[in-house]
């Protein structure tokens, strides 16, 4: 397992990308989503006026139940709504001050936002080596790609051991590492992770968590979508809670961890003692909705 204290060469970053510290956050957030409305199939409302900001250097968590709109928000940011018959009907998305609303996915990746999709979605028939290479096609520089790939092998040594394997034969945890490595190949300034802990054993979740911290320490800003709220809140600076397509709650992660509603809804902690079903809690705390 990779601990936070391990000494390891810094993963190289593009020199063209300016180093922006967390103090630059207030001036120009790396990602700014304003009043975003998304509709699926011209009828079903996916998001209703969502606003969210991610400052450069932050880890921001996005929590919510199934169907709350977490994945929809990520799809809207990365331009993948078109694959799901969805469309942005209102609001704006800016990345580093640049309007990327409705931009094509390759434009958005080039602008610096890379997504690790839910379910990992590695190219199962291709080797680990080729999977990583696909993440850098957008940069169009094969020599830089090879160098970047070596950095990924340093970050994820298990991928180096399995570089000639077909990705479909990797374990779930290894596939998740590959999916993260593939997204990092484009040297993004913002990494969007959709449920990286889904379906993984607790020990592997720990490992993935450490990798996220490491990637962040190397200078990548992270927007983390998770149902595993305990994990997400333990490593994030701030968090948003999505409910029925709108932001129900937001604040520093430390504060949300202590919030009774969050504890009951997403952390499975009942402050009044005894266990209650999700449904009980939800109906009992409907006031937190939009």
């Amino acid at each position, binding site marked *: 397992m990779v601990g936070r204290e391990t000494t390891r060469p810094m993963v190289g970053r593009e020199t063209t990308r300016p180093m922006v510290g967390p103090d630059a956050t207030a001036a120009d957030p790396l990602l700014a989503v304003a009043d975003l409305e998304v509709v699926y199939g011209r009828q079903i409302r996916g998001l209703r006026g969502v606003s969210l900001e991610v400052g450069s250097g932050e880890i921001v968590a996005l929590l919510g139940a199934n169907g709350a709109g977490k994945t929809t928000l990520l799809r809207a940011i990365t331009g993948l709504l078109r694959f799901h018959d969805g469309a942005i009907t209102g609001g704006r998305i800016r990345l580093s001050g640049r309007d990327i609303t409705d931009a094509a996915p390759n434009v958005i*990746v080039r602008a610096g936002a890379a997504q690790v999709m839910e379910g990992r979605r590695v190219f199962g028939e291709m080797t680990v080596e080729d999977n990583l290479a696909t993440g850098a096609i957008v940069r169009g520089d094969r020599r830089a790609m090879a160098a970047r790939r070596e950095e990924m092998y340093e970050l994820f040594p298990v991928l180096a051991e399995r570089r000639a394997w077909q990705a479909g034969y990797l374990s779930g945890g290894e596939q998740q590492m590959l999916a993260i490595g593939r997204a990092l190949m484009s040297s993004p300034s913002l990494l969007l992770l959709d449920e990286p802990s889904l379906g993984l054993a607790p020990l592997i979740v720990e490992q993935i968590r450490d990798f996220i911290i490491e990637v962040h320490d190397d200078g990548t800003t992270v927007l983390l979508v998770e149902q595993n709220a305990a994990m997400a809140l333990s490593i994030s600076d701030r968090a948003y809670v999505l409910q029925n397509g709108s932001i129900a709650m937001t604040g520093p992660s430390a504060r949300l961890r202590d919030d009774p509603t969050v504890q009951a809804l997403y952390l499975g902690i009942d402050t009044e003692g005894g266990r209650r079903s999700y449904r009980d809690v939800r109906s009992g705390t409907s006031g937190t909705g939009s």
Partner: protein
Amino acid sequence: MEKFFQLLVAGIAVGGIYAIIALGFVVVYKVSGTFNFSQGGLVLLGAFVTYQYSGPWGMPFFVALALAVVTLAGVAMVAERVVIRPMIGKPPFAMLLITIGLLVIIEQLVRSIWTEPGLVLKTPWGNDRYDIAGVTIRHADLWTMGTVTVLFAAFFVFFSRTDAGLGIRATAFDQEAAAAQGIPVSRAFSVSWAIAGAVAVVAGVMLTSRGGSALSPGLGLISLRALPAMIIGGLDSPGGAIAGGVIVGVTEIMAQGYLDNDTTGNVATIAPYVVMIIVLLWRPSGLFGTRAVERV
């Protein structure tokens, strides 16, 4: 024994042509998930366009061939952009019928542009033959085998070593995940059709040359003989296209050489389909195809 070797060489050459046609089918199938019947139309048009450039317009043969390759790649890309891409996400059956429509349109177009009967596509090798130890080998067959080898080698290098090839493979496996990596998915569609158009020219010229160099508007349907080759190899396997092509080519030529004189029916025509059925009963996804339920 001489007869056997002679038929074997001819069979491998014909198989190589089928392999190229099957390759065109496979490339489009992998990316679009559709079976492209218009591939036969591209083969037909490719042969006639090469004739137009080299015959009436007087270009040297290889210049005409190269130019025809570029032309057909363009035609295929336009066809994809105009009639195929709007159908993405619609039922595969609709797309299938559109490609049949394309085949019919191209065939009628060729018949109405080149109305003069008895057109001949002149090739540098013509109908020359070698005679080696009693085995007659046609120059056309040697050219075919050489071209097929080079084409497939180029094809594999393209898919394993270039960004464009990598992007197409990723797109073929998972369109959305490919888009999420910043791979331009629509370009993968265009390039796969361009490849189908380009290889169709080579197949069209080789088929015509093998058949005595007379241009035939029936070439589109003849190309569909590559279908058993594609199915035997596996719908989505370029390597399978070679194996399937050679199996079908050799079967057809051997049947022609040994059986057709003794039977009233045309055994050569049905033999590939018989082999196809036997292979499919044994391996439903073909020899090298992905084992999954295939849409068609």
